């Protein structure tokens, strides 16, 4: 009941965009997540310049070289070498490209599919909604890992196949969230008035609905990027994802697994990289949600 007085006090504050900027720079998770992600993206983009060695160059005389912090380690191979004597740091840097590529392309494919389905279901309702809901249920009841493994096994484990399969499988959350966001907006006055003005459906969808579900969309994009990156790593780990000699982090963990008992850092390093990337993307997504819709926090 004191909302009125509180509101007037807040409205006298700085402008909307300044408030937004302040919220961004005060959001700890957003800064940490954004910082780590930028570092990883830079590492991936500049892998060619940063990597001290060719990630594919084998040196069988120098297998399992210790990383620099161990006694036998050297600055030549900062993170050591793997079972084929390839420089671990260089492979890690090039591997970031694969993870980021998988994340981006999968989120793009599944985002387009899911958004089209979700927005049409939410906007048109009725039969369209029923069909989309059914498809979502069907999709959710398909065991993702199992289906993805089977398809990759059948079509061969190339980057293209992995990305396509994941893109075709991970649209469910887009559809669910876009559907409910659109439903909320559909009934609002400005959409009704746009309809009354005789705007075409497509125009309403693009100019009235889409801009207002964009925040939610971005949050789902981050979630699904993280999801796709973990799944690719898992598939590659099981040997039914990206194939050697590509330096996928999941593959690196899989190759290091055989030396689990003797050289645990072989799985620790790519695992930590994978963890850091997922962590950063999740933090960024949570941060965007908090900053764009502070009232939805918690």
């Amino acid at each position, binding site marked *: 009941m004191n909302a009125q007085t509180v509101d007037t006090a807040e409205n006298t504050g700085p402008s909307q965009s300044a408030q937004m900027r302040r919220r961004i720079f005060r959001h700890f998770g957003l800064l940490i997540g954004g910082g780590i992600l930028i570092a990883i993206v830079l590492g991936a983009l500049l892998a060619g310049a940063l990597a001290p060695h060719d990630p594919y160059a084998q040196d069988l005389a120098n297998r399992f070289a210790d990383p620099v912090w161990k006694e036998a380690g050297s600055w030549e191979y900062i993170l050591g070498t793997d079972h084929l004597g390839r420089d671990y740091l260089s492979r890690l840097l090039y591997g970031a490209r694969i993870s980021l590529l998988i994340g981006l392309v999968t989120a793009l494919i599944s985002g387009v599919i899911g958004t089209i389905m979700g927005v049409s279901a939410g906007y048109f309702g009725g039969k369209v909604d029923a069909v989309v809901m*059914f498809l979502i*249920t*069907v999709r*959710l*009841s*398909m*065991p*993702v*890992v*199992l*289906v993805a*493994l*089977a*398809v990759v*096994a*059948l*079509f061969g484990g190339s980057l293209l196949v992995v990305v396509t399969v994941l893109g075709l499988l991970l649209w469910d959350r887009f559809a669910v969230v876009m559907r409910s966001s659109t439903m909320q907006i559909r009934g609002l006055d400005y959409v009704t008035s746009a309809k009354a003005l005789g705007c075409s459906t497509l125009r309403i969808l693009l100019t009235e609905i889409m801009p207002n579900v964009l925040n939610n969309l971005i949050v789902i994009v981050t979630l699904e990027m*993280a999801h796709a990156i*973990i799944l690719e*790593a*898992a598939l590659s*780990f*099981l*040997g*039914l994802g990206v194939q050697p000699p590509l330096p996928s982090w*999941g593959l690196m*963990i899989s190759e290091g*697994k055989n030396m*689990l*008992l003797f050289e*645990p850092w072989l*799985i*620790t390093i790519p*695992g930590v990289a*994978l*963890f*850091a990337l*997922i*962590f950063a993307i*999740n*933090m960024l997504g949570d941060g965007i949600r908090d900053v764009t819709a502070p009232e939805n926090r*918690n």
Partner: protein
Amino acid sequence: MLRFFLKRLGLAALVAFTVSLISFSLLFLAGDPAIALAGEGATDADIEAVRIQYGFDRPVLEQYGGWLGNALTGDFGDSYYFKTPVIHLVAEKIPITMTLGLCAISFAILLSIPLGVLAAVKPNSLIDRFALFLSVIGQAMPSFWFGLILIVIFAVNLGWVPVSGSDSWRHFILPTVVLGYYATPAIMRLTRAGMLEVLRADYIRTARAKGIRPGKVLFKHALRNAVIPVVGLTAVQLGFMLGGSVIIESIFALNGAGFLAFESISRNDFPTVQALILIFSLIYVLLTLLADLLNAWLDPRIREA
């Protein structure tokens, strides 16, 4: 209530049917199983013979119809690899996966619901921060890597539990923790958010105004309402976990349906893969149905919808 149940049951059947159709066509599209079946060094004539023997020369819908008809009677054909009925293989392995799934979901519930409730009761407290920390870490942790790390620490270095296998309950400890932790962040967050919202509700104030004891306000009046969305999520998570068992069982060499699925995929054993996809999706559909029924019991408003 009965109508609600029948409607959901009909939908479940339709969903399972569609999933099986999709996975069947996928496997059909994927190429010629006859080549794989005939083995290396087979002549064209051998392959042709296999094709006719297994009926691969028939149109896809006809093959699917035949498969579905048999599947409805529990006959999923013979495994290409073991040459024994798929249903026997699955029946042998599925209890292990179900055990793992139930252990893991129990672990997740016992960890996340109390923590979520406590975090909501005292927001920004130490326990809230701990819960947030657990969920942030859990969300970013690739479960296969987490499994390996646990093996290194608890099985190899400390030797508290066996590294792999499925012979005793001790073999299930690490897989339970890994798979359960996977489901924990989502359940905990939803419990916390639900409790936070419900604790602000007018009827909580009413219960307090009546002089109901604080503990009872929390567990009778608040939790029951907050847990309604959690029930659905838990069912979904359990379904995902059964799918995720493919990865976990492979890491721990736990000899369940997930491991069977992984090996069957590697062996091009299509009937087994096909049957497992259908069974996993059926389990998922039944779980969500169960969650709906549980929710209808928890929330009287749903009963009449």
